[in-house]
C-alpha cells in the first residue's frame, strides 16, 4: 500500500512539474493579449478607418474585409479592433475602481465598529435591491446618454458586491493577533483599516475583480446596445451590434455577429483568468 502511494505521489509530482500552467488560463491570456494588441496596433495603423465610410455597404467577409463591411461601408474588423481598446480598457478600469472603492469601504466597515457597519450594510442592501443592469440603466438614463456616465453607473452597480465580499474577509482578519498588536501599539482605527485589515483581506476581492471585469464588459455593451452608452458613430461592441440588428434580420449577419464574438472571447477570457487566480491564490 505504501509503495503504491509513493508511486502515485511521484507521478503526481512529475505531472505537476510538467504542467507549466493551467492550459485554459494560457489560452485565455493568449486570446486576451491578441485582442488587446490588435486593438492597440490596428487603429494606430489604420488611422480613423473605423469611422470612415469608404467601401461598399454590407460586403460579406472576404480577404480584404475579414469581418465584412457594415451598412455604411465601414470595415467591421477595423471597428471591432477600435472597439476592443474601449471595451477592454473599460472592463479593466471598472474592475480597478470597484476593487479599490469596494475593498476600502469593506475594510472600513469591518473595522470601525457596529454603527458604521450597520450603515454600510443597509446601503448595500438597498443597492442590491436592484438587479445590476437595471440600476446602471436608470442611473445612465437620468444622467444623460454618455459613455462616461454608463461607466460610472456600471461601477456603482458592482461596488456593493465587492463591499460585501471585502467586509466578510476583513471580519475574519480583524480578530487576528497582529491586529490586536497594532491596536496596542497605538495605531488609529483608520490606520488599522487601511494598513493592516485592507492589505490582508485584499486577495479575495482581487480575484473577484477579474470576474467584475468580465461582467462589466457585458453590462457596458448592454447599455450601449440599449442606446445609453457609447453613441454612434463611435465603435463599441454593444453599439455595433445594435447598429447591425436591422441588417441581421434582413440576412447580413456579419456586422452584428463579429462584435458579439469579440465580447464572448474577451468576457470568457476574463472569467477563465478569474477562475485560475482563484485556484492559484487560495
Amino acid at each position, binding site marked *: 500500500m505504501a509503495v503504491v502511494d509513493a508511486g502515485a505521489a511521484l507521478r503526481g509530482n512529475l505531472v505537476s512539474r510538467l504542467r507549466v500552467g493551467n492550459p485554459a488560463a494560457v489560452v485565455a491570456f493568449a486570446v486576451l493579449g491578441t485582442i488587446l494588441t490588435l486593438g492597440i496596433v490596428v487603429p494606430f495603423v489604420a488611422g480613423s478607418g473605423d469611422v470612415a465610410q469608404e467601401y461598399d455597404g454590407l460586403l460579406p467577409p472576404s480577404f480584404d474585409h475579414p469581418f465584412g463591411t457594415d451598412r455604411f461601408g465601414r470595415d467591421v474588423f477595423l471597428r471591432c479592433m477600435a472597439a476592443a481598446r474601449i471595451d477592454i480598457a473599460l472592463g479593466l478600469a471598472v474592475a480597478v475602481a470597484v476593487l479599490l472603492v469596494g475593498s476600502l469601504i469593506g475594510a472600513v466597515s469591518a473595522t470601525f465598529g457596529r454603527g458604521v457597519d450597520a450603515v454600510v450594510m443597509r446601503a448595500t*442592501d*438597498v443597492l442590491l*435591491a436592484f*438587479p445590476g443592469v*437595471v440600476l446602471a*440603466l436608470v442611473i445612465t438614463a*437620468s444622467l444623460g446618454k454618455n459613455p462616461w456616465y454608463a461607466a460610472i453607473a456600471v461601477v456603482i452597480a458592482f461596488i456593493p458586491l465587492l463591499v460585501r465580499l471585502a467586509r466578510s474577509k476583513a471580519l475574519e482578519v480583524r480578530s487576528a493577533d497582529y491586529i490586536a498588536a497594532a491596536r496596542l501599539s497605538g495605531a488609529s482605527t483608520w490606520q488599522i483599516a487601511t494598513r493592516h485589515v485592507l492589505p490582508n483581506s485584499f486577495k479575495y476581492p482581487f480575484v473577484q475583480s477579474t470576474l467584475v471585469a468580465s461582467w462589466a464588459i457585458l453590462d457596458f455593451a448592454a447599455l450601449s*446596445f440599449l442606446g445609453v452608452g457609447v453613441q454612434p458613430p463611435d465603435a463599441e461592441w454593444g453599439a455595433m451590434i445594435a447598429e447591425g440588428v436591422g441588417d*441581421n434580420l434582413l440576412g447580413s449577419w456579419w456586422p452584428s*455577429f463579429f462584435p458579439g464574438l469579440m465580447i464572448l472571447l474577451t468576457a470568457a477570457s476574463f472569467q477563465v483568468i478569474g477562475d485560475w487566480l482563484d485556484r492559484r491564490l487560495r
Partner: protein
Amino acid sequence: MLRTTGKRAGVALVSILGVAVLTFFITQLLPGDPARIAAGQYASEEQVADVRAKYGLDQSVPAQFAQYMGDFFRMDLGTSIRTDQPVRDELTSRLPATLELGLTALLIAVLLGVGLGVTAAVHRYRIGDRLVQVFVVLASATAVFWIALVAITTLVNGWGIFTSPTGRLPRGFAPPEHVTGLYVVDALLAGDPATAGAALRTLLLPALLLGVLASPSIVKIVRSATIRALESDFARTSRSFGYPARSILFQDGLRNSLLPVITNVGLVAGFVLAGGDVIIEQLFAWPGIGGYAYSSLQENDLFALRGYVIAIGVAYVLINTVLEFVYGWVDPRVNLAEGS
C-alpha cells in the same frame, strides 16, 4: 422563529423604503435635468418649463420628495409622458406576458442548472465535468442581445425551427380568453390546444435564451454543493453500508445540494425578470414590462422608466424575502444560526 421572521420583514421594509428613496435620488437629484431629457434634445425652453411644471419639478426638493413618497405609498407610479397613461396600469396590463416568459425561463434555468451541476459533480474532475465548465464559462460570457440575434438568424430565419419573433402568438391566432394572462395556460383552459401549441412554440425560444444564459450560477452552486455532499462523511458511511450510487446521489447528494439553489433563484430571477428581459422582450417584440422599459428609454420617458425601476426594485426585494422564508422553512438550521 418569530424573531427571525420579524427581523426579515423589517429588513424587507427598510429595503423597500430604500428602493423608493434611492430611485428618487437617482432620477431627480443627480446632475442630469429630467425635464430636459424628457422633453427631448430639441425642445424649446418653454416646452421644458411645461414638463417641469406638469411633473412638479419646479417645486423645492423637499416638496418634490414629499409628493413622491406620498405617491409611492398610494402605489401611484406616476404618468407616462409618452402615452399619457398611468404607469402602474400599463405595467399591470403587461405583467402577465413578462411572467409567462420569465417563469418559463426560470424553470429552464433551474432544470438545466441542477441537471448540469449534478452531472459535473458525479463526473468530477473528469471529461464530463470539464465540458460543463466550458459551458459555464461560455454561457456567462455571452451577451444576451447577441445570442438572441444569432438564434433568430439561424433557428428562425435559417432553419425555421421556431416561429418569427413577433410577439406572443404567430399571425392568424387570436389571443385566448383572459383567465390567468398566461397564453399557454389560458388556451389550454379554453380547450384550444392549437393556440396553446403555437403560443408555447413562440414562447420557447426567448425563454430558452434567457434560461440558458441564467443557468451558470446555478450550475456552479449545485456542482460544488453536490461534490461537498458526495465527499462528506455521511455519504462515505452510506457507501460503506453498500447503498447503491444512485440512492447516495439522491438521498445524500441532492437533498443537501438543492438548498443553496433557493437563495440563488433570487439572483437568477433578477436577470430573467429584469436585466436580460428588457433586451429579449425588445428583440422578440414581446409585449411585457421589459419591452415597456425599453420603449420608455428610447423615447426618454424618464417617469415611465422610474415607475418600472421602482416596481422591479420592490418585486426583487419581495422575491428575495420570500426565498429567505422558504430557505428557513426547508432548512431550519438557518433560523437557528441567525437567531442565536
